[in-house]
């Protein structure tokens, strides 16, 4: 093993030396390592569910409004499988101190997933002003 001590590395691509898809980084506690690729967010988006508008995103192509409270989101560079995890958030208004609705993420596929919001009281579809999703998993 050789060690190179530098302050800054400028590179277009980082690739594992032994296994191209695996780079170990020292964990915060300093005693173990964790996997760089596994810890990266593979896609995220911030949508307006009323207007079917993507405010900002990473690795998300576009969304399709599939009716009140239903949105299909497409992943640009595909996942390796459909067993990725999605953290999500919904808020019916941009700034209100209430948590009205429930949200589910399903229809997972390598190229996308759906975001669905409904009223907690009766399960009726309900658009929300803020929809967030963060995808963690394996890219293809």
């Amino acid at each position: 093993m050789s060690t190179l001590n530098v302050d800054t590395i400028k590179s277009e691509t980082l690739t594992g030396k032994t296994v191209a898809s695996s780079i170990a980084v020292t964990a915060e506690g300093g005693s173990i390592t964790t996997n760089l690729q596994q810890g990266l967010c593979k896609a995220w988006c911030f949508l307006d569910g009323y207007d079917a508008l993507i405010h900002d995103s990473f690795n998300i192509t576009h969304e399709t409004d599939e009716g009140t409270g239903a949105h299909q989101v497409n992943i640009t560079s595909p996942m390796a499988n459909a067993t990725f995890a999605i953290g999500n958030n919904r808020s019916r208004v941009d700034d209100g101190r209430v948590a009205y609705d429930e949200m589910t993420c399903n229809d997972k596929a390598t190229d996308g997933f759906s975001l669905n919001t409904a009223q907690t009281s009766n399960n009726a579809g309900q658009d929300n002003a803020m929809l967030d999703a963060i995808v963690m998993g394996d890219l293809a």
Partner: protein
Amino acid sequence: MANANYSATAGGCFDITQADDTQARQGPAVNNLAAGSFRTHCGSNTTSANDWNVVTAKAAGDLA
């Protein structure tokens, strides 16, 4: 953050001592996004606000 268009999600639990469905509560919802902050709002099992024992959050987006 570089702007207020990032993705923020939250989770948590109402009562950290309980492990069954008595945990069921609405939320947390995240909103009021700004470059330097956001708000989380935890609900009860109706639509009223409710303080929770644990609230977690994560954000993905562009740093300044």
